[in-house]
């Protein structure tokens, strides 16, 4: 089972970067992708992130999430087509020949364009955060956030939320199997998913609540909340960090110049 957003133990380019560099990386990527409305530029950003994933030897992990990202992208496009008509009509979801409701939901160029922009932004954000999270040990994340003066309880909440993802994946799978073995057949597709809510989600939530109680006690009993820590094996800034920071500064500067001088290219 592919684990979502979990640290992968490797020694690639991204792994060697200081967490602060990676935080800067996601800030720059997020700001640019939120400001940009040009589809080609967003496609370029997705491509750049995939190249970076390849350089960091993390392309397999990133590609594993591609299915989820593509499904979400299609959902975005469908939602915008239904809710945000605009521009030229290029067809209809319900053909015009159908009596009464024919031609009810027009497919417009404006809606598709907005949908694609949203989908591409989503891709950039997911890939950037994924590169950050799968290449940074939670311990380093805790240290970096501590240095940014975030309260330890919030840091631990963030770490635990991430850490619970694979646990819930595995637990959900076990519960699903246990119910199937009792002859449960919720069916496939969306309807099946809705039907399986009670037999799967109730045990999942109940078990997780019990587990989170133990987890909370463990955190206290290991003294993580005392905040008094010996600094050991701290990450130091290396050549890769300087190269990455330079690259990010140049990208940000170029984006600002283009946005001011040639706004049509990016907006």
């Amino acid at each position, binding site marked *: 089972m592919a684990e979502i957003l979990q640290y992968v133990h490797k020694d690639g380019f991204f792994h060697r970067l200081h967490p602060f560099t990676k935080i800067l990386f996601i800030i720059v990527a997020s700001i640019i992708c939120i400001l940009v409305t040009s589809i080609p530029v967003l496609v370029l950003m997705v491509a750049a992130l995939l190249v970076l994933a390849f350089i960091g030897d993390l392309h397999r992990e990133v590609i594993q999430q591609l299915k989820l990202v593509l499904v979400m992208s299609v959902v975005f496009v469908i939602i915008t087509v239904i809710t945000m008509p605009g521009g030229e009509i290029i067809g209809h979801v319900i053909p015009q020949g159908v009596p009464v409701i024919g031609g009810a939901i027009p497919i417009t160029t404006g809606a598709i364009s907005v949908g694609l922009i949203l989908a591409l932004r989503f891709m950039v954000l997911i890939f950037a955060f994924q590169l950050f999270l799968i290449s940074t040990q939670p*311990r380093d994340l805790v240290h970096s956030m501590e240095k940014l003066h975030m309260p330890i309880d919030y840091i631990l909440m963030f770490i635990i939320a991430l*850490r619970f993802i694979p*646990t819930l994946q595995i637990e959900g799978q076990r519960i699903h*199997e246990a119910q199937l*073995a009792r*002859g449960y057949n919720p069916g496939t597709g969306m309807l099946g998913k809705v039907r399986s809510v009670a037999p799967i989600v109730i045990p999942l939530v*109940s078990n997780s609540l019990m587990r989170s109680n133990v987890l909370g006690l463990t955190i206290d*009993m290991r003294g993580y909340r*005392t905040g008094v820590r010996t600094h*050991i094996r701290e990450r130091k800034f290396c050549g890769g960090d300087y190269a990455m920071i330079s690259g990010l500064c140049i990208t940000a500067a170029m984006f600002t110049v283009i946005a001011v001088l040639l706004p049509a290219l990016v907006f």
Partner: protein
Amino acid sequence: MIELSGISYTYPHTVQEALHDLSLELAPGRCIVVTGPSGAGKTTLCLAACGILFHEYGGKKAGIVTINGRDVSAYSGLSEIAKDIGIVFDDPEAQLIFTTVEEEILSALEYRGLAPDEIEKRLASILDQTYLSALRDRSPHHLSGGQKQRVALAATLALGNDILILDEPTSELDEHATRRIVEILAGLKKQGKTLLIVEHKYTHFRELIDTLVVMEHGAISAIGAPDEVLRDGRIKRIVIPDFAGIRDNAAASHPSEPALVTRDLSYSYEEVCALKNVSFTVGRGEFVAVVGENGSGKTTLVKQFNRLLTPTSGDVEILGKNTKNCTISELAKDVGLVFQNPDHMFFADTVHDEVAFGLANLGISDGEKAIDAALTEVGLLHTKDLYPRWLSRGERQRLAIACVVAMQPEVIVLDEPTTGLDGDEARLVMATLKKLQHRGHTVIVITHNREIAEQCADRIVAMEQGRIVSDTRMVN
């Protein structure tokens, strides 16, 4: 040293006391093992002994707990108590926070105010002591149950406390992994650590125990040196499971009529081959135990019986039907599978509704008789209107069996049905299964407990690395 005197405790929203006027002294360098039926208050005792009950839980409390002479209420909180006591809970999965074994231990070491050199030294020593050096870069989530438990223990050892409390550290572990944990704990005792261990596997811990405590209904019913405590026959049956007499030769099995056949069955998880050319036949009405260490392929094998997994190659036939031609829900009529953790299936509001769920899945809406019969069979008819999760571990295990029995499958498969149960409960579960065999069911039990297999089953199939290595008939 921990001293509990006159501890009584009632959990919020309940009326029954979880602990009743309990007094216990844990002297330095000693090892106390606490055992008893589920729901007896063993875990609550652990929570009381390390002050968690007094700092984190509501409810009614009475009595005093002191740690090294200091009242636990005088500590500022758990973080301060953690400087004196380390605790390992029974669910190792819930205690693993970080992404590599080394990171898990290192993170615990960092908060002890030690110098960096000292941290590195202790890290190496703990990895060595818990046999985790080779696994230091592995993700804890991908380790076996025994390895996970060792990581949880290692992270607690990192605290460097002299008092350790362990709540069922081996409950889901096989023989090998249990022996490893016992070995580590024996080493810790030798170092002078004080140990309070809740355990059901008395025989494994025998050499370690200075004082054996047996708890029932929130109170201590026996305490003393193991030999002294075990002189009482009733107490002995709680501590040491006695399966004698469960197997009888009178059960009407028909080995010549196959209920289940596997032919050259192989199964691979991505690149890992979990089953290799497994061929065996189980006759109707047989009671078969499948034994083997964790990872030997036992669970993978039984998941093929109802098509939760489909063979990579080879065939499985249930009552003459090839599973490849059947759906999981069709096979559920013939094969009932009870998983190791009953909590994976309970979601209904009452015990009755939980059993009715399986029947409804088979299209039987008026199954009152079947529900009552199944609950009577496992001795739980009186709990019919209770919330399933309120039952004790042993009762929940029997309810899981009832859920499957009500569906009247010919073949009943159980994955480690005695996990976490005391001697009496384990015997009750095995006797229930024997009764089902007498009713004509074919029973297949997965276990890593050889004793259960030898005392209860008609036939023992041993597995190793995805293969059947022996197939022994215990009765003619």
